[in-house]
C-alpha cells in the first residue's frame, strides 16, 4: 500500500515536470520557427490570453463615477437628454413629460424604473400638485414652479415623503432603487419619491429548518420584511440595525445588527473592521460575506451560523451575536459561531429538557458515527479483526467473501455512490429527483450487492454514515464531516486504528486552533467554561438557563 502511494506520487511529480518541460520547450520552439505564424497563436498559453483581456477592459470601459458627476441643468429638455444617455438601452426606464399650471405652461419630467415599481399606479406629480393646491394656492390652474419650490423648501406636509436631489449621480442611484424622480423646468433640482414595489415571497416556513413545535415563520428575500420580523420579536431600542449599500455594480443593501449591551465590544469592533472592507464587493448572498470575513477560509468547518428563522436570530442577538442580512436573500448570518452551537437546534428550547438532552446526545453520537464509522470498519477489518466479536466477524466474512475490492476501495465506491445520489437529489428538478432516489436506492441497496461490488455490511456502514450526517442540524457542518471521512478512511487503510486516532487528533487540533471573529471555536470546552456546559451536551431547564442578560458570563464588570 505504501509502496503504491509512493509510486503514484512519484508518477505525479514526473507528470508535473513533463508539463513544465512541454510548455517551455514549445514556447522556445515557437519563437524559433517565426515563419510558422499560423502555429503561434495556437501555442500561446492561457495566461497570455487572460492578460490581454484584462488590458482591453481597462482601456475601453470609461470610469463610471467620472461620467455621472454632472449637475442638473435648468433646462428640462437638457435633463431628459442626459437621462436618456445614461440609461441607454435600459428599456425599463420610463421618462414621461407633463405640463401643468397656468395654460399648462410649466413643464415637468418624471423618470422611473418600471420594473421596480410594478404595483404603483399612483401619479406622484399629481398628488404633489394636489398637496400644493390645498396648502398654498387656490385652483390648480395657477400653480407655478416657484410655489412648488417654496413648498418643498419649507417642508410642507405632503402625502408622500419627498427628497430633493442635487446631481445625476444621486438620480441614477435613486432611480435604480425604485424611486420616482420628478424634474421641473427652470429648477436645477429634482424631487424623488420612494415607490419601490417588487414582488416578494410570502412569509413561509423555511424548508431547511423545520420544527415540530414553535413558530413556522421564515425570512423572505426582502430585507425590510426580514428586519421587521426581527424587530417585532425584539422590541428594544438597544437592538441596533445598521444598513449600507455595498458593491460597485450591485449596490446591494446589507444590514448588520446587534443588541447593545449584550454584544462583546471587542468582537463588534473586529466585525466592523472586517465588514468595512466589503465596500467594493458585489455581494449577492450572505454566504459571500461569511467567506469574506471569516478567519480560516480553508477549514472545512463553518465558522458562522446560517438561519432562515427569526426565532433563531433573536436568541442569538440576546446571546450577544451579530447578525448580517442581505437584500435579496433570506439567509441570516450569525457570527461568531461556536462549534457547539452548530449542534443546537432551536427546538431544543421548545421541547422538555429531558427530551432535548436526549436528542442532543443523540446528535453527538451521530457526529461520531458519520465521521468515523467507515474508517473504523476499514481499520478493524484490515488490521484488527480480533476486535470484532466472533459471531459478527463470521457474518462479515461470509458477506466479504467474493468481493474483489479491498475494504478501502469498496468503501470509497459506496460512499461515492451515496454522495452522488445526495447531490443528484438536491440538484435535480423535483419530479426527476424522485426517480433519482428510487434508482439510487436500488443501486446502493440491492444491485451493488447482487453484482458483487459491495458487501451488505458496507451498505449498512455507508447508509448509517449518511443518515447520521443528516441528523446534524447545520447542513454545512454535516458536509464538513462527510468530507473529513475520506482522509480518515485512507489513514485507516494505511495505518489502521493508529491512523484513525492520528486523524482524529489532527481534527481536534485543528478545531481547537480555529477562531471565529477572535472567539475560540471550541469555547465552552476549550477554554473550559463550566457554567456554560449546562447548554452544551445537555440542556438544563430554562429556569436555570435563562438569566438576563443571557450572556452575563461575558460581562466582566462588577455588578453594582
Amino acid at each position: 500500500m505504501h509502496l503504491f502511494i509512493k509510486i503514484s506520487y512519484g508518477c505525479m511529480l514526473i507528470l508535473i515536470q513533463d508539463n513544465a518541460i512541454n510548455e517551455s520547450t514549445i514556447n522556445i520552439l515557437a519563437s524559433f520557427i517565426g515563419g510558422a505564424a499560423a502555429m503561434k497563436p495556437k501555442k500561446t498559453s492561457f495566461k497570455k490570453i487572460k492578460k490581454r483581456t484584462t488590458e482591453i477592459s481597462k482601456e475601453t470601459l470609461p470610469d463610471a463615477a467620472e461620467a455621472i458627476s454632472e449637475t442638473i441643468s435648468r433646462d428640462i429638455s437638457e435633463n431628459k437628454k442626459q437621462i436618456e444617455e445614461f440609461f441607454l438601452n435600459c428599456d425599463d426606464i420610463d421618462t414621461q413629460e407633463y405640463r401643468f399650471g397656468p395654460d399648462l405652461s410649466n413643464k415637468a419630467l418624471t423618470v422611473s424604473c418600471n420594473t421596480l415599481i410594478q404595483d404603483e399606479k399612483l401619479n406622484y406629480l399629481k398628488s404633489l400638485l394636489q398637496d400644493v393646491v390645498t396648502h398654498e394656492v387656490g385652483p390648480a390652474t395657477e400653480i407655478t414652479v416657484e410655489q412648488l419650490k417654496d413648498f418643498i423648501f419649507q417642508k410642507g406636509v405632503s402625502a408622500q415623503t419627498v427628497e430633493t436631489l442635487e446631481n445625476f449621480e444621486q438620480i441614477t442611484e435613486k432611480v435604480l432603487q425604485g424611486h420616482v424622480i420628478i424634474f421641473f423646468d427652470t429648477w436645477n433640482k429634482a424631487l424623488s419619491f420612494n415607490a419601490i414595489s417588487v414582488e416578494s415571497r410570502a412569509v413561509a416556513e423555511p424548508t431547511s429548518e423545520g420544527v415540530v413545535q414553535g413558530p413556522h415563520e421564515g425570512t423572505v428575500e426582502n430585507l425590510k420584511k426580514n428586519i421587521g420580523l426581527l424587530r417585532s420579536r425584539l422590541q428594544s431600542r438597544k437592538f441596533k440595525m445598521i444598513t449600507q449599500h455595498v458593491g460597485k455594480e450591485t449596490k446591494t443593501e446589507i444590514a448588520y445588527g446587534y443588541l447593545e449591551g449584550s454584544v462583546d465590544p471587542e468582537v463588534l469592533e473586529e466585525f466592523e473592521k472586517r465588514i468595512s472592507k466589503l465596500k467594493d464587493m458585489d455581494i449577492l448572498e450572505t454566504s459571500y460575506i461569511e467567506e469574506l470575513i471569516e478567519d480560516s477560509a480553508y477549514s472545512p468547518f463553518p465558522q458562522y451560523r446560517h438561519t432562515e428563522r427569526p426565532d433563531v436570530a433573536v436568541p442569538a442577538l440576546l446571546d450577544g451575536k451579530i447578525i448580517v442580512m442581505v437584500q435579496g436573500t433570506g439567509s441570516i448570518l450569525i457570527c461568531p459561531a461556536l462549534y457547539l452551537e452548530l449542534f443546537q437546534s432551536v427546538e431544543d428550547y421548545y421541547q422538555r429538557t429531558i427530551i432535548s438532552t436526549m436528542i442532543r446526545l443523540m446528535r453527538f453520537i451521530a457526529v461520531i458515527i458519520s465521521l468515523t464509522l467507515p474508517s473504523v470498519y476499514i481499520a478493524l477489518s484490515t488490521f484488527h479483526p480480533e476486535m470484532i466479536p466472533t459471531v459478527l466477524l463470521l457474518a462479515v466474512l461470509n458477506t466479504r467473501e467474493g468481493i474483489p475490492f479491498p475494504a478501502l476501495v469498496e468503501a470509497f465506491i459506496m460512499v461515492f455512490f451515496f454522495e452522488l445520489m445526495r447531490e443528484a437529489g438536491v440538484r435535480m428538478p423535483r419530479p426527476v429527483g424522485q426517480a433519482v432516489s428510487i434508482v439510487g436506492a436500488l443501486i446502493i441497496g440491492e444491485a451493488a450487492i447482487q453484482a458483487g461490488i459491495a458487501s451488505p455490511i458496507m451498505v449498512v456502514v455507508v447508509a448509517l454514515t449518511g443518515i447520521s450526517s443528516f441528523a446534524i442540524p447545520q447542513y454545512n457542518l454535516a458536509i464538513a464531516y462527510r468530507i473529513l471521512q475520506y482522509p480518515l478512511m485512507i489513514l485507516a487503510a494505511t495505518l489502521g486504528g493508529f491512523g484513525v486516532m492520528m486523524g482524529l487528533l489532527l481534527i481536534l487540533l485543528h478545531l481547537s486552533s480555529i477562531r471565529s471573529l477572535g472567539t475560540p471555536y471550541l469555547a465552552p470546552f476549550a477554554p473550559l467554561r463550566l457554567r456554560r456546559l449546562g447548554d452544551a451536551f445537555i440542556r438544563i431547564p430554562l429556569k436555570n438557563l435563562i438569566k438576563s442578560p443571557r450572556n452575563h458570563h461575558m460581562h466582566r464588570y462588577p455588578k453594582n
Partner: protein
Amino acid sequence: MRRFIVCLLTGLLFILSGCWDQRELIERGFVLGAAIDEDEDQFELTVQFYHPTPKEEGGEDPFNFNINSETISEGARNLVNHIGRRANWSHMQTIIIGEDTARTRNFSELLDFFYREQEPRATTYITIGQGKGSDYLDVKPLFEGSSGRQFREIQRISKEVTGHSMETNLFDLALQMKSELGTAIIPYMTKVTKKSETAPVLGVAIIKDDKMIDKLSGTETQSLLMLREEFQRGNVKVSCKNGNKKNVDNIEVFLLHSEVSPKVKGDTVAVNVFFQIQADLRELLCTKFETVEVMKDFEAYIERNIEESLMNTIEKLQKNKVDAINLGNKVYRDDPKLWAAVKDNWDELFAKSQFVFDISVEIDASGITNPKPFLKKAE
C-alpha cells in the same frame, strides 16, 4: 525548506509507527478451534477453519485440517503451505488436548506457542478430551456454527447451571499452573453417541507437575468445586430416606456462603469446612413435608448426603496425593513462611489432612406447588 522538513518528519512519524499487518479479511483464514494430539514422535495439530460462503446459502461447515510437525509452532506456521490463507488465531474458541497426549506430554510443551504468539487470546478455552482430541472437532455442532464454539459454550453453561465442570481458559490455566501448588483442573470431555454424536463436558482433569494425572466425574466435580469455593448451583440427588431404592428426591443446591480454611499444626493439617447451602426442591418422589420437624430432618439428611459425597471426593484426591482443592495456595496466602516450611512435604500432609464439616442446609422453596409428591393422592 524548514517547513518541508517538518512535514517530511511528521509524515515519516506516521508511516514508521503505524500498524503494518494490513491484510484484507478475505486473505485470512480464521481459526475457530485447535486440537493437539500425539502422533508417534510428532505432534498432530488439527485446526478448524471457518469456511466463509458468499450469499445466503446456509453457509458451509467449517473444515478441519491437520498437520504433523515436531513442534506446535512449526505446525502452526506451516499450515499456510497447505491452505493458502494466513491463519488468524485471534478468534480461536477452544483448544482440545487428547487425554493420552495430556498424560504423557508436558503442558508447557503443548501450550507455549499459544501463550507466546500475539494472536491467540488468553481467553481461549481449553479442554481435555477422552481419546483423540481431533475427533472432537469433527463432532457436528448443534446450535453453534462450529464445534469449537460449541465446546466453549458448553463449558460456560455447564459450570453455571450444573456445576459438573469447570470453565477454564488459557489465562485461568496459567494462573493455576504458576501458583504455589502448581496443580490445575481443566474441563474433561467425553464422546457420547446416541441418536447423534455429542461431546458433553463432564468432570475435570487434574493436572499436576505439567501432566494430567487423574480425572473426576461430574458429581465429584460438584464436590470439588464446593471445596474450592467456586460452586454456584447444581442438582443433587438424595435417595429416599425410607430405603426405597427406586425413587430419589431431587434438589437443587446453591452455595450461599463457604469457608474452607486449612490449619497447619506441626505434621497435621486440619481443614474446617463451613458451608451455608440453600436448597430448592426440584423433584419430590418420596418425602412429604407436613411438619416443620420433617423438614428439619430432611435438611439434616441432605447435610449428611453432601458431607458424604464431599468425603468421597476428598478421599480420592488424598489417595492420589494431589491437592486440587487449592488448600496449599490458601496456606501460602495466609502465611508464606509457614508455606515455605511445609511446601516440600505438602502432598503427604494433604493426604493425611483431617476435614471437619459444618454444613447447614436450608430448604428455601418447593417450586410452585406444596412440598409433597404432587400426583400422589393425599392420604
